[in-house]
């Protein structure tokens, strides 16, 4: 848009300027809406409708502002006058309109109009006074100074400056209900600013080629198979979802009966059956549940491989622990698990061990990542299937509790209706 505006300024090829006549002052550089539309048609060889739309966009984004009816930012293809906005006030996401500036503008307007602000401006003014209260003195000071500085200019320029500022704030803080051009969707990271510019030398291209080759060699799975697997994984959760399948004994939000939460507390001795069943879905489910982890530890102790789980837990503690204690954690992990002849030595392959020992010399939060991942995969592939087939787990399943559904009261006019909540999601397809 900016290039378009600049090309409009060309004294030969640009738009013909007229003068705006106010009562006694004459201000140059005004143009009619018709001029703009004609120029756009001529320069870009587009239809009138498109040119009107394009010009309208220019007005809505604040590059051109109307002089006769400043509050309606519309391009009219007749002789209504418009003027260009000064580059300082061009819409830019690099320089968003700040609250401080808006506060100064409102304070200036307040002084000029002797307290007669429009409703939404009054609201904004009071809000800003609360929000940036600590710099409010500065706002008042600066508003006064800016007005005094403006008095040093010619009358015509002063009018233009006022118009410009008003147009700028109409675009950036539109009155409620008006179209807000500045609205944009959720913040998308601008890839151009965050990418570091690497020098494009031989090494860089070699690395690019290597990574492309590796990418080609990766095993691929058909997306249909992938999606089937994904759907299957998610469908097994359906009976576990309180919204989809109702929850026993009853939904606490409906019946005010908190048994459900009590029975599913993190450490409760007979766990519910659904919970124990969930441990069979994936290893992360088992590890994520406190009870599950305890049971796994019991099992591993019997198998004499409990140090794996302890090592994994210690690494988690390192990853998510306090910055100041990182050195301490790394040291204790090394002493307990990795040093040759340690009490709970874990079995890691030699390459990972070498790398980890190197990394320990400069300890940081993620030095143990390789080793931790290795142990995790070991547990997942080796211990976990055995756990699921073990007697320990089968006993747990047998002993697990299925909470009874709370009985329905016979008399309908009893105050507390305790019943398992009808699943609202299932009602809908039935009703269709």
């Amino acid at each position, binding site marked *: 848009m900016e290039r378009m*505006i*600049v090309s409009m*300024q*060309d*004294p030969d090829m*640009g738009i013909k300027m007229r003068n*705006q*006549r*106010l*009562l006694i002052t004459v201000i*140059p*550089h*005004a143009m009619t809406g018709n001029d703009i539309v004609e120029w756009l048609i001529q320069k870009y060889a587009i239809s009138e409708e498109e040119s009107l739309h394009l010009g309208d966009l220019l007005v809505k984004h604040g590059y051109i502002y109307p*002089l*006769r009816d*400043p509050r309606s930012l519309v391009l009219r293809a007749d002789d209504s006058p418009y*003027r*260009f*906005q*000064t*580059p*300082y006030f061009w819409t830019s996401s690099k320089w968003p309109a700040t609250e*401080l500036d808006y506060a100064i503008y409102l*304070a200036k307007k*307040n*002084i000029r*109009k002797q307290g007669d602000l429009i409703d939404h401006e009054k609201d904004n003014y*009071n809000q800003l*006074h609360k929000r940036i*209260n*600590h*710099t*409010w*003195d*500065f706002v*008042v*000071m*600066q*508003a006064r*100074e*800016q*007005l*005094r*500085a*403006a*008095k*040093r*200019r*010619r*009358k*015509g*320029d*002063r*009018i*233009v*400056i*006022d*118009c*410009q500022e*008003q147009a700028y704030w109409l675009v950036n803080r539109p009155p409620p209900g008006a179209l807000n051009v500045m609205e944009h969707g959720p913040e998308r990271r601008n890839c151009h600013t965050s990418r570091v510019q690497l020098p494009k030398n031989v090494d860089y291209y070699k690395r690019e080629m290597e990574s492309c080759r590796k990418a080609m060699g990766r095993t691929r799975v058909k997306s249909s198979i992938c999606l089937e697997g994904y759907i299957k994984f998610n469908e097994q959760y359906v009976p576990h979802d309180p919204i989809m399948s109702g929850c026993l004994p009853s939904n606490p939000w409906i019946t005010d009966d908190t048994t459900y939460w009590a029975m599913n507390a993190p450490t409760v001795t007979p766990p519910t059956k659904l919970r124990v069943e969930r441990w069979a879905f994936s290893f992360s489910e088992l590890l994520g549940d406190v009870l599950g982890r305890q049971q796994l530890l019991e099992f591993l102790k019997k198998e004499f491989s409990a140090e794996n789980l302890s090592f994994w837990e210690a690494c988690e503690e390192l990853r998510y622990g306090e910055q100041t204690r990182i050195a301490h954690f790394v040291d204790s992990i090394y002493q307990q698990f990795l040093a040759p002849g340690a009490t709970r030595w874990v079995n890691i392959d030699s390459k990972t061990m070498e790398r980890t020992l190197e990394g320990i010399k400069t300890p940081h939060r993620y030095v143990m990542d390789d080793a931790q991942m290795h142990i995790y995969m070991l547990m997942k592939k080796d211990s976990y299937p055995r756990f699921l087939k073990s007697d320990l787990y089968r006993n747990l399943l047998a002993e697990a509790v299925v909470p009874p559904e709370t009985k329905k009261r016979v008399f309908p006019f009893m105050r507390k209706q305790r019943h398992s909540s009808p699943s609202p999601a299932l009602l809908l397809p039935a009703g269709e």
Partner: protein
Amino acid sequence: MVKEECKALLDALSRVTACYRHMVLTIGGTSDSQNLREELKKTRQKAQELAVANRNKLTAVLKDKAVSKEDKAEFERLWVIFSTCMEILEIDMRRALELGQEFPLNVPRKHLIQTGMSGGTSGVAARAMSVQNMKYEAEHNIDVVDLKDLENEINQVGEMMYEMEMKVNVPQWTVEAKQDPGAELKSTISVGASSIGMISVEENKSFCDISKVLAGIIFSAVLIVAIVLAVCVVKLS
């Protein structure tokens, strides 16, 4: 008194900042010129001097342990005002750099935006520099030459602000403003002179002032003539 000095320095800095903002507004428009660029340079150098003076004074006071509690609160308030002023100054300097690069003045193919401004900003600059008239003595390509200096000065200001943050620990949320909403209306400055002039609604108050003065003069002249005539009539009769 230290407080009065600090306040005076801060007022001066605020004034210069407002003038600088005013001038940056006109970059790229039709009243842009080499003079404007020179004014910008001088104003921002003045602003930096004032900023350094302010900072030195305020840090000296805030580090002084012998200051009473109310005084300390007052100085913290001044400090918050000062740091906000510096933020605005830094942003304006960055924008001046960007706009200066966008709109170089001596390139024939780059046209300035016809914003409707026709007068110069020398009055504003004179106010900023506290002089009667501005003298222009720079070369004719100051718009390009100055940009390098501007970059350096922006870096300097950035460093200064970082140092300020690190050395002085004044949490902004503990400062309460002295002014209530609407405090600016109680000032005695009459700024109703410049209002937004639309084609249909015109409130030319300053014009009315001139016409009022003219009307007054004419009226008093007529009155004097009438009195003289009456005296002549009385004398002759």
